[in-house]
């Protein structure tokens, strides 16, 4: 068995008796892009801070690159970090900010300037060396933070919601930049975000958390097509999976919950559908239109239609879906594999 580059083994951390994170077990391979995803307060930032050495876990073990660093200081873990607020030193220029760590580690001046030039070149900041952070735009500050993280040449880079202070357009661009950077440098990135689009589009592996516990770990496809719990089903994907109570459909137990994706539902003529609902809204996005539907025992029902579709709000429609497109969850919210429904994996 090959040993993982980073291993978190049953990590727990509590704040004054209150739960922070519990039983976090996670293997990260070298060169992997791992996204810690979850709503605010789910413990994803705490996990990152434990990994960074900014907090000490109450229990468990952290191994980075073969060394047990559970109680080691942040400095000894050979990693870099990008903060949500960028944490640029306001009194230092761009160049001094990027070189801060190298000065602390007493890297010779010649090497320092070379690496600085390199990092600024990669991040497109050449010419801004003497500016103070206060004189830069949000996107530029973000890139200075990136440059500071990559200049040290550490193999592991932690990012705490680095894009949340950027506007939507810039976010999409920087997302690509970060992904490219990671590919070019071959570094391992652990990336915290609450935005499932970010996690799904960038990560090799997504770790979805809730209330301090990992809900599911897997590739973006696994999380999308095989959600382990109803929480994952509702969190991943835009729009999220619709959840229907078992008793509203024939052939399912009352305490089961049935999930179905928007693109797997079809509108049909009255009398031929499996569920009769009311139209609540129409969302036109250009290539497709999402029709929001309402049913007393279903949540988040949405049908995806190609192109532009006109529906009268308040009108009644019927929908249908194939059995093999359904996800079945037991009374505890966990996924079950009923015999008569082939799973997506078996389908492949």
């Amino acid at each position, binding site marked *: 068995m090959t040993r993982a580059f980073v291993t978190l083994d049953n990590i727990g951390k509590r704040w004054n008796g209150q739960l922070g994170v519990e039983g976090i077990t996670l293997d990260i391979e070298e060169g992997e892009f791992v996204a810690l995803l979850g709503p605010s307060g789910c413990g994803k930032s705490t996990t990152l801070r434990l990994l*960074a*050495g*900014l907090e000490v876990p109450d229990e468990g073990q952290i191994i980075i690159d073969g060394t047990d660093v559970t109680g080691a*200081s*942040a*400095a000894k873990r050979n*990693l*870099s*970090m990008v*903060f*949500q*607020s960028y*944490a640029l*030193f*306001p*009194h*230092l220029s761009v160049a001094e900010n990027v070189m*801060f*760590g190298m000065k*602390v*580690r007493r890297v010779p001046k010649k090497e320092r300037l070379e690496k600085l030039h390199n990092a600024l070149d990669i991040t497109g900041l050449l010419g801004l060396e003497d500016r103070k952070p206060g004189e830069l735009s949000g996107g530029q500050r973000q890139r200075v933070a990136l440059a500071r993280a990559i200049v*040290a040449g550490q193999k592991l880079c932690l990012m705490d919601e680095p894009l949340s202070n950027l506007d939507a357009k810039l976010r999409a661009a920087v997302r690509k930049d970060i992904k490219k950077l990671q590919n070019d440098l071959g570094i391992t990135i652990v990336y915290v975000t609450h935005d499932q689009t970010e996690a799904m589009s960038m990560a090799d592996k997504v770790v979805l958390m809730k209330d301090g516990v990992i809900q599911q770990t897997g590739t973006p496809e696994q999380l999308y097509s095989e959600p382990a719990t109803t929480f994952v089903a509702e969190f991943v994907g835009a729009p999220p999976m619709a959840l229907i109570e078992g008793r509203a459909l024939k052939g399912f137990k009352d305490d089961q919950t049935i999930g179905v994706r928007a693109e797997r539902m079809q509108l049909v003529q009255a009398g031929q559908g499996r569920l009769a609902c009311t139209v609540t809204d129409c969302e036109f996005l250009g290539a497709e239109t999402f029709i929001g539907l309402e049913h007393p025992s279903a949540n988040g029902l949405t049908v995806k239609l190609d192109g532009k579709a006109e529906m009268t709000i308040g009108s009644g429609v019927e929908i249908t879906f194939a059995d093999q497109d359904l996800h079945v969850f037991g009374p505890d919210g966990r996924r079950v594999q009923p015999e008569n429904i082939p799973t997506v994996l078996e389908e492949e």
Partner: protein
Amino acid sequence: MSRFTKSFDTIGAVALAIVWIAPLVFAVWAAVHTTSDAVNFRLTSPWTLDNFRTAWDGAPWGKYFLNTFILVTIVLIGQFIVTTLAGYAFAQVQFPGKDFAFLLVLLQLFILPEVLIVENYAMVSRLGLFDSILGVGMPYMASAFGIFLMRQAFKSVPIELDEAARIEGCSRLGILLKVYVPLAKPTYLAYALVSVSTHWNNFLWPLIVTNSPDTRPLTVGLSIFGAPENGVDISIISAATVMSVAPLLIAFLIFQRQFVQAFLRAGIK
């Protein structure tokens, strides 16, 4: 605001300014005229610098200036070191009894330094610092006001900056010197202004703890120079007074923009 209250405000401000500046204006007026011209307010009488010459020759002013300069420098350096370390400890270090210790420091703000003169005198004598410049400055180095000010300044530094420096491998002292201190620069400047002007003008404590011209600061020298047994000549005393406040006044006029800005920035936090 109505026009009446607005003009009332202006008149009030001007009146207060006149009251405030009058003694200084009179001292300058008296210093450049003969005594009889000065007290009789003969506005057309000739100006003279004789008073300055007489005053300068009457006491070792050069030595006094040097003493005061050394005194305020020593006090300021000592205060910077003590308040930086204590302020950082109270702002960012967790240790048992921290709140109680900080309470004790704050209580010190309520005690007038004059109350402690006898105790300080005994302590300075025990340390063998009687009649030395270090002895004059020592009791003021652990300034409660300064510690409080630095604590507030350090508390306002975003914790991410501390963490970022820690991840880059900075030691605790390194973080203090490279992150906290530079970010608290406006506070240091504002505090330096208060400290220097206070200790430049301090009189009672140096009077008690010094007894030779070698250690006396300006204020004590000035009071001895102007004591009744030397004969009171208002023009000469004014000349000596103008001399002793001049460096501080000039420094303030030169740096006044920076000082005001420093106070504003330190105050916003």
